[in-house]
């Protein structure tokens, strides 16, 4: 057993976990934050993306113990109360989800993408950056549109 201490969505959580406990298991099973999904468990699909100390990581491939001491942001933590985060609103507006399974990971990945590129994104870049996130429903088109829209809105706010 290992003692871990994480700040998740601004809230400090301390727990004893098995050494092999994955970060995604900790989030879903211990904290019941089930917005983060497990798709493939092999770092391929990206449904489990969360932010650890500001970086997008696949939480199925990180031990909870490795994240101890870190600050974790999950899909539950990006919006304020009932208000959608602008990126969530853009996914809704552009029909960027169908079954919704990949959506939490897509949004956490996109949030990181927009930040790293300072909102300056084009369709080709977005598609390349989504390499690690798989969607079987949408053909990606409306996901790309949603991310570009949210990125443009982010730029507009900065000007």
């Amino acid at each position: 057993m290992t003692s871990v201490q994480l700040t998740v969505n601004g809230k400090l959580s301390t727990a004893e976990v098995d050494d092999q406990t994955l970060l995604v298991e900790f989030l879903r099973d211990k904290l019941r934050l089930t917005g983060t999904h497990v798709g493939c468990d092999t770092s391929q699909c990206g449904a489990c993306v969360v932010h650890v100390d500001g970086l997008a990581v696949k939480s199925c491939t990180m031990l909870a113990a490795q994240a101890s001491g870190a600050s974790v942001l999950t899909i539950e933590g990006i919006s304020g109360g009932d208000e959608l985060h602008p990126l969530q609103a853009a996914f809704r507006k552009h029909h960027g989800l169908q079954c919704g399974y990949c959506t939490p990971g897509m949004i956490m990945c996109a949030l990181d993408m927009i930040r790293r590129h300072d909102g300056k994104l084009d369709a080709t870049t977005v598609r390349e950056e989504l390499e690690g996130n798989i969607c079987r429903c949408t053909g990606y088109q409306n996901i790309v549109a949603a991310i570009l829209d949210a990125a443009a809105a982010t730029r507009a706010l900065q000007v």
Partner: protein
Amino acid sequence: MALDKCLALSDWAGFEARRAASERAGLRRGRGIACFIEQGGIFNERMELRFDPSGMVTIVAGTHSHGQGHATTYSQMVTEWLGVPFEAIRFIQGDTEKVPFGRGTYAARSSMLGGAALKNAADIVIEKGKAMAGFLLEAKGAGVEFAEGIFRVANTNRTMPLVDVAKAFYRKGGIPKEFGLGLEATGSYAADPPNFPNGCHSCEVEIDPQTGSIVVDRYTSVDDCGRVVNPMICRGQIHGGVAQGLGQAQREGMVYDRESGQLLSGSFMDYAMPRASDIPEIHGEFHEVPCKTNPLGIKGIGEAGTIAAPVAFMNAVADALDGLGVDSDALQMPATPEHIWAAIAAARPHAAA
């Protein structure tokens, strides 16, 4: 018609210029087209409408939505037919404790079969409502009409909204016994005769003959799915279907070890699901020809993309390789870069001769 639209939308006429540009870059460009027809929707389906004493209505669906947007599409229909506010509609599906029977979602069937069954249920609600409205408005044998959510005694100004009539079915008393208690209706519909979604898709690819790698550079879809209830959802269905079709044609394949029978493509590490950069922006339009074999004019939408895309893609690949001596009939799906490169290499001696 769909063909003409597709040719215009895809700038079919500008292909030669694009091909010349590709050629200057050492790439081979090809185009393909697929005119398709399918049979949409099979079997029969069952839908229920249940009002409650507050005037809310619940759709109990025999179909199942796992991303196809049924809650939205069915609610649009109920709002249109019964004049109930969108926000006053609830949706139940997939729970065997709550849905007495249903066949689910497959074969591009839900909007047409589920929708037509729902229409059947809505018509029954209107008929029951007319009788109740006749009593409440003291029609005394005069006809009761229904339009845009309002019952009206014919040739009078005596009216009542459907929601109020629905609530009356739950009154504690003062209602003739023959109305029973509650307002609900079950509708059904069968896909007999069926419907035939159809359309025309085109695809352009660029192949690097040195490596066999393929880029889908342009994809255009024109679909006749009958009446389009929700354009955003229907477009989403086309996008997803095309991505499925392009995945199947380009790279998705189950690979087994010849010696041991072991599955080699058993995870996303090995099974090549298309990524965002593998799928082009799809330019799509609808060519709406209302279906005549169901009351809603709807044809299926869910599988159109999967049917058209592999054909359009493989035709484009064959066109791109034209002149290299490749036996295009021997090209197999998935047309992976390795497969294409091998086909080009195998044809080389013949091309030289």
